[in-house]
């Protein structure tokens, strides 16, 4: 099985040089995207086959990488699941790119790296030894870096790519150190060797922290998220979708692989660390997102929030695992992993929508959009589906995973540690808060950019996007609905994963009548997306039918009422920032030092009044700016060593000699 997967990856890798050789043209881009579409579809088929039990756990070892070790590759349940996530996202992205890529003005900077990027992500989850893992990890980062700076004339993109590359290198080094600890001095880099070796408690804790830093920096965990909202929007939209929807999940895979699989039994306090970080990440991410008015950047920040939710699930799973409560652990882990899948689906969908808008209007700034629902109704519809899904509203899929997470939280009183007893409810409150804020955020995103009246000619003259893009988006939207109303199937699919990682899987859902999901016990809690969906559809249509039949269905178009204000200009609509104003007042003053400076022109002056909103990113100010300043300072100071005279250099040599001789003189 794994060997076929490797063939597929090989095909992807082979695509890059082909793309380089053929040069950049419309035909080539079609070739590349169609080929990657086919390969990713095949790979996802393989992944699903492995996931549903037909997988042989045998790995293969290729004579590559470290010579005495070779490159080990293997598909177990975990990697199969993530393989499926990656390649579903990849397939959707390739399909979308078939249409979207035609508008790419510098394809020669996109086409060669796109397949390599897909290949890198696939290899990460296939790898079964530290070297191949890290190498593929870096290839993934590197190719995505190249894609981020594809439009390099824009200095902002270059800066984004720079920050991204540095953070990626930082994360890789952290993982490298973690693996170095796990491997020991004799270099047992193969994963099965690491599983066999049981590090001491202190060492294991260090590994956990390093893994959290390494994988977290890639996943965008606060405060290591700084690169994410810069880099994700900078790339072409289908790549942004892959980076946000898929690559962050690969990072989550790295964390799960190390902490749940390689590291052995957890200590109870690890989960506190993970939970705290997850909760903070969730709330901070969505608050950042609310403050944005660039559509793609808003989506990128929202990825941070969802990563937080996922880490909350993982943290709960760690806690339960540490106390040997397998079933609760299985529930929490399943919740987290299900959210991994869900988020990959609707985040890709939303980024596609943003890309379609970008193509149609050349704008991603919501302040310049509006009224797109009239010009591009289908895009608006799928985007709306994505918004509902990501806002965790029933009956779509986002709600299911958050609901499961809540159920897991409700099991936490059985944990016997005080720290967790106090932390978990707080995390639950944070989770609820982030869910509510997410809804607010996407009311803003959809309402400001798609509803209302066009704010610029560009928005007024937008055109519906092309067929392939729409196909990709409708596919994902359908997936959102299916996963929302038939969650049992997906939960059962995840059972082998949790069985492998925490010992047991969740109770089998497929056998429950009415397709209800019952995480723990029938009396405790249950949810049936299908019924809710059917009920809502039925009752709404009944109401519509009844009213239209029994009462009037007459309709007249007229000017907006608006409390009688005549023909208000589009500028009077609520803009993105004014929509966020109440929430900014509530949360922003504390977290962003948000300040609103109103400038009133003097009486008689014709200049318009201005309202300037100042936001400070405190995390950047506190954590990143000092480092940059420090490096700059050190470089400046050391740089004077470049400008000494020969005599001074000689005296350097001289003093080094004298120093060493002194060392010898005092040597025992």
């Amino acid at each position, binding site marked *: 099985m794994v060997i076929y997967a490797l063939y597929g990856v090989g095909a992807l890798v082979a695509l890059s040089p082909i793309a380089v050789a053929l040069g950049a043209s419309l035909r080539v881009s079609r070739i590349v995207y169609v080929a990657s579409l086919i390969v990713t579809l095949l790979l996802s088929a393989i992944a699903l086959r492995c996931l549903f039990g037909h997988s042989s756990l045998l790995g293969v070892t290729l004579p590559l990488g470290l010579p005495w070790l070779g490159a080990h590759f293997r598909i177990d349940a975990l990697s199969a699941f993530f393989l499926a996530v990656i390649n579903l996202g990849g397939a959707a992205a390739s399909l979308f790119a078939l249409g979207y890529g035609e508008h790419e003005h510098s394809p020669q900077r996109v086409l060669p790296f796109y397949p390599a990027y897909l290949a890198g992500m696939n290899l990460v989850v296939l790898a079964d030894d530290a070297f191949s893992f890290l190498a593929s990890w870096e290839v993934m980062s590197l190719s995505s870096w190249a894609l981020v700076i594809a439009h390099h004339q824009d200095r902002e993109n270059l800066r984004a790519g720079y920050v991204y590359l540095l953070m990626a290198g930082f994360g890789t080094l952290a993982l490298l150190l973690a693996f170095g600890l796990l491997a020991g001095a004799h270099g047992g880099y193969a994963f099965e060797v690491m599983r066999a070796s049981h590090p001491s408690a202190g060492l294991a804790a260090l590994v956990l922290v390093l893994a959290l830093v390494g994988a977290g920096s890639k996943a965008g965990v606060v405060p290591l998220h700084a690169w994410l909202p810069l880099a994700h929007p900078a790339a072409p939209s289908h790549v942004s979708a892959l980076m946000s929807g898929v690559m962050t999940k690969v990072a989550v895979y790295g964390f799960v692989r190390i902490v749940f699989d390689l590291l052995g039994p957890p200590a109870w306090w690890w989960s506190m660390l993970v939970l705290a970080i997850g909760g903070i990440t969730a709330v901070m991410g969505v608050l950042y997102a609310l403050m944005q008015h660039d559509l793609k950047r808003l989506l990128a920040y929202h990825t941070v929030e969802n990563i937080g939710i996922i880490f909350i699930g993982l943290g709960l799973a760690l806690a339960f695992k540490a106390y040997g409560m397998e079933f609760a652990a299985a529930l929490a882990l399943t919740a987290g992993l299900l959210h991994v899948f869900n988020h990959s689906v609707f985040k890709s969908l939303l980024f596609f929508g943003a890309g379609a808008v970008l193509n149609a209007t050349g704008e991603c700034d919501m302040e310049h959009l*509006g009224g797109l629902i009239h010009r591009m109704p289908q895009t608006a519809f799928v985007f709306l589906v994505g918004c509902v899904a990501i806002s965790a509203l029933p009956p779509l899929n986002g709600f299911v995973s958050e609901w499961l997470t809540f159920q897991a939280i409700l099991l936490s*009183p059985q944990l016997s540690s005080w720290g967790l*007893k106090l932390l978990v409810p707080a995390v639950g409150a944070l989770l609820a808060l982030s869910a509510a804020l997410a*809804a607010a955020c996407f009311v803003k995103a959809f309402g400001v950019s798609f509803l209302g009246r066009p704010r610029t000619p560009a928005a007024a003259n937008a055109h519906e996007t092309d067929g392939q893009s729409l196909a990709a988006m409708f596919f994902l939207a359908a997936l959102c609905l299916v996963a929302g109303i038939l969650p049992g199937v997906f939960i059962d699919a995840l059972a082998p994963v949790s069985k492998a990682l925490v010992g047991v899987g969740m109770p089998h859902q497929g056998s429950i009548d009415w397709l209800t999901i019952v995480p723990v016990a029938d009396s405790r809690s249950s949810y049936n997306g299908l019924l*809710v969906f059917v009920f809502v559809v039925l009752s709404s249509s009944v109401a519509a039918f009844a009213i239209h039949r029994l009462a009037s269905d007459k309709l007249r178009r007229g000017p907006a009422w*608006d409390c009688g204000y005549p023909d208000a200009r589009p500028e009077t609509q609520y803009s993105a920032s*004014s929509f966020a104003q109440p929430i900014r*007042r509530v949360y922003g003053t504390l977290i962003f030092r948000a300040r609103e400076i109103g400038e009133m022109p003097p009486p008689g002056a014709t200049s318009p009044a201005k309202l300037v909103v100042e936001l400070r990113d405190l995390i950047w100010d506190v954590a990143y700016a000092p480092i940059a300043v420090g490096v700059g300072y050190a470089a400046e100071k050391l740089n004077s060593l470049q400008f000494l005279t020969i005599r001074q250099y000689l005296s350097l040599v001289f003093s080094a000699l004298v120093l060493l001789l002194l060392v010898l003189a005092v040597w025992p």
Partner: protein
Amino acid sequence: MALIRDFAFQGAQMLLVLLLAPLLTGFVRKVKARLLRRQGPPLLQPYRDLIRLTRKEVVLAESASWLFRVIPYIVFAGTWVAASLVPTFRGGLLFSWSADLIAIIALLGSARFFLALAGLDVGTSFGGIGSSREVMIASLAEPAMLMVVFTLALVAGSTQLSTMATYMLSSDVGLRVSLGLALFALIMVAIAENARIPIDNPATHLELTMVHEAMVLEYSGRHLALIDLSSELKLLLYISVIGCLFVPWGMAMPPPSPQGVAIGVGSYAVKLAVGGVLLAVFETSIAKMRVFRVPAFLGAALMLGLLATLLLFVSRSL
């Protein structure tokens, strides 16, 4: 046979909430008017309004999209389904397991989500004011509500409303501090969610103070009727949730005996009446607060909920 009966009960429940909702609103209005020594509109006025509205033609703004026309039905359906899943006079509804309390809250959340979108759809400034304030309020109210749910769920060991009600009926609940806190928080949330004084004033049309009304400003005719009906349903729902969770006495439990059902209906009516009177009294005795005082109000609710949960964790561990 039993299945059919259960179907019947479920249907009855759906119709009951649908029919009672306007009456409750009218009742509250009436009581308020009396407290203000006014005659006040007749009890059945809300029904008349609804019928009148449905007969009128809809005047739709030019800039309104298809979504604007769909939303009333979605909002109505969501609220109705949520309301019909709350045990009112009889526990153990047929479909109660299809959505637990969290899901019900989420359903209301979806309704609000779409309503807020409707506020933005026409592209007027007032709609914007309404939706932005609405989501701000919701962003605090929903977590508070969920904290309440946590408390109750931890006490009852379930998020299933019927199960919770059964547990509350059982003797081993006792009097708990956290339950009191939770009740308090729940009432605050209910006031906020139903746009009652002091958060919002359903009667006003003074622009700058509107929240809910501003959102639905552009609606007319049948659309407006549906919106009003769903807000009335929402009020009913909250009162019945409070009733079913904190004063579940008299609720008929399966297997139902005719007199049990009768008692259930009667007690339910009483609960609604009491709730309505209390609401009216509260509303008349307090003044509306500034919009930016609302966060403090709801933040307090959230804190209460969290406190209740924490106390519960602590007491559990003793």
